[in-house]
């Protein structure tokens, strides 16, 4: 992979995505060994720089880095200089001066990792920026679907929930469509970003990918789930009601919640995914979340393998089993 940073999947070619997935498969084998530690990042310093609270993503990156024998430092917004009014640029320059080799960054402002990536010689991995992108989450989703269904091209992926505010939905859409799947985005009309489908079509054409109707948008959940191979539910936050975007969680779960009855509309054996953390009984019912079609726990496990793969490739590693 010839790139300094992983900021989003919108600029990934299909070959680059395949390289990550292939490498992740090798990393998954490492995770199955009795001793899960391999040496490729020995002596490298990886900084986990989280401006937003996160447990699962931060721990996933930390484990991934440690499995590759890197030294890991965690910076969180609370209790650090960030709280004292230090700007993002100041922090970035400090990281540069301290000699970080790779920075994993989560930030509430869309585009913040782009700013840092321009300033810093180290590689940046975007671990989520505002509503914009969460590329490693999308990569683990791709890896999970590839592992379970054997292929991504031609699949139909329904993403249901608060698309407007979702970096997961945006990055997943770029990832799946770049590998030739069709994505259906489904949300209440107040939670759909206007013009996103057009933006993706334009971006894919620029990459030379010509899937017909790569993204469709609907507020009808039954239509979204019809013939879907993958159903991804997104977390719906209570603050969306305070902003007047939703009448109530009750109405949301009745109209858009992923239930056993609704899953029956999807293709037989369709995968059920969720980026977590879940509001059980709101966007997804417990019997679906823990049912036979759910791959939600596998997503978490695969997250470590995929993040190992991304770090390994950014550090100059080559795809293949020679880890």
């Amino acid at each position, binding site marked *: 992979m010839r790139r300094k940073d992983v900021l989003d999947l*919108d600029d990934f070619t299909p070959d680059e995505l395949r390289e990550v997935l292939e490498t992740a498969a090798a990393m998954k084998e490492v995770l199955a060994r009795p001793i899960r530690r391999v040496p490729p990042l020995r002596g490298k310093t990886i900084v986990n720089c989280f401006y937003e609270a996160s447990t699962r993503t931060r721990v996933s990156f930390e484990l991934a880095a440690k499995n590759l024998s890197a030294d890991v430092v965690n910076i969180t917004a609370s209790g650090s200089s960030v709280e004292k009014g230090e*700007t*993002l*640029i100041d922090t970035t320059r400090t990281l540069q001066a301290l000699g970080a080799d790779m920075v994993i960054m989560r*930030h509430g*402002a*869309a*585009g*913040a990792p*782009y*700013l840092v990536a*321009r300033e810093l010689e180290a590689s940046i991995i975007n671990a989520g*920026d*505002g*509503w*914009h*992108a969460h590329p490693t989450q999308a990569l683990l989703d791709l890896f999970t679907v590839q592992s379970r269904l054997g292929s991504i091209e031609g699949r139909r992926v329904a993403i249901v929930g608060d698309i407007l505010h979702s*970096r997961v939905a*945006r990055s997943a859409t770029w990832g799946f469509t770049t590998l030739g799947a069709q994505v259906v985005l489904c949300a209440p009309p107040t939670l759909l*970003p*206007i*013009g*996103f489908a*057009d*933006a*993706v079509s*334009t*971006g894919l054409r620029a990459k030379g990918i010509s899937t017909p109707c790569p993204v469709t948008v609907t507020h009808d959940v039954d239509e979204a789930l019809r013939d879907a191979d993958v159903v991804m539910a997104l977390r719906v936050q209570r603050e969306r009601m305070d902003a007047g975007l939703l009448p109530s969680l009750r109405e949301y779960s009745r109209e858009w919640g992923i239930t056993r009855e609704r899953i029956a509309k999807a293709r037989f054996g369709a995968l059920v995914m969720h980026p977590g953390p879940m509001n059980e009984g709101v966007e997804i019912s417990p019997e679906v979340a823990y049912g036979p079609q759910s791959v939600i726990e596998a997503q978490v496990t695969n997250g470590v393998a995929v993040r190992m793969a991304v770090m390994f490739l950014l550090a100059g590693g080559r795809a293949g089993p020679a880890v």
Partner: protein
Amino acid sequence: MSNPNNEAIRLATAHGRFLRSVVIRGGRVIDPGQGIDAITDIAIRDGFVDAVGIGIDAPAGAQVIDARGLIVTPGFVDLHTHLREPGFEYRETIATGTAAAAAGGFTTVCAMPNTEPAIDTTAVVDFIHDTARRQGSVRVYVIGAITRGRKGKALADLIELATAGVVAYSDDGDCVTDSALMRNALAYSRTTGRPVVQHAEDRALTTGAQMHEGSVSARLGLAGWPRAAEEIIVARDCELAALTGAHLHVAHVSSAGTLDFIRRARSRGVHVTAEVTPHHLTLTDTLVGGHWWSATASLPAYDTSTKVNPPLRETPDSLAMAAGLRDGVIDCIATDHAPHATTDKHCEYQTAASGISTLETALGSVLAVVHAGGLTLVEAIAALTVRPARVFGLASGTLLPGMAGDVTIFDPDREWCVDPAQFRSKGRNTPLAGHILRGQVIQTIVGGEVICDRSA
């Protein structure tokens, strides 16, 4: 339209300055205010236009300028300039802002009142007038706040402000959202005949907004500023202008749909005028997603120099702005020069200040529209000179004998590379850095005095 009870707006002057004599020979003089477009000469005597005509005599002791091959026009008039002083001198001062104006061919600027303190008392108006007389490179008029402290709660002392010399009222940067307050501002403004300049933005629709709402904002995950937020306020204000008979001026129109509301009000005889900025004429929201113009000029995604309020919109909007200037729905071009310090812009997009430093690139941007066939040269010059002057009733913008001797001389074809480090303005915030613009000011003359000279 100014009220007969009130004296006419006095020419902004400077003690002992702007009273020189000069003769400009052989240029193509374009003065749309008089319908002149001819190769001819202009004589300025002791600061005022003496005569326009071939072979006129030079006043005694006059400097002689050879303008052959160049365009000679009345000095440009900007109705919308943020000079930032008092309060934000780290962004711009009256000295640096007017120097930037001179460099860009503007001989008259109107200072917006979003200063600290806001321009809502005679004391602040006097401070700006005095400072401009002592330190300014060009003529400075002052726009007073509509509401006390620009807080949108209670009217400022509008008559007192007019007596102190303000040429218009505005809370620019903020919209007067309260319909009753806006009605009262318009009604009360009839006592002074000064226009009420609205920054049209329905804040309920722009909470957290960072850029135009469309496919680019959807892709970038930035909260969007829909066109409707501007159109709703303009539609409302047109009705309030009709109700009160007052003069409404719409600042920085950005949405094509807004023009329909202005057109409709005009056809009913409502006194509505409007301006557009050089950036809304020429740039679009795609820049926010990153753009490559040339080997020297490119913007990465989320570059904060593209953040401006109202936001850059889409191509149909910018085309509609040029069409609006052609058919007169938009009266003039105003820069909305909004200088910011590096620290205001070198940060996350959502933290960055809104605004573009435009005084020094305005002519090049407007000429890009001319070179592309969107406006004629005469239309563009009218929109920079006589038309803005008429909107605010200023005694400039045309070269009739007896008028202020303010002249801009430019080469419409000279190419130059935008280098913000060379700006006279403290604000280096422009998305045009490294961009090649075609058309550059050669000399700017205020009251017969050459205040910017690139002729060497």
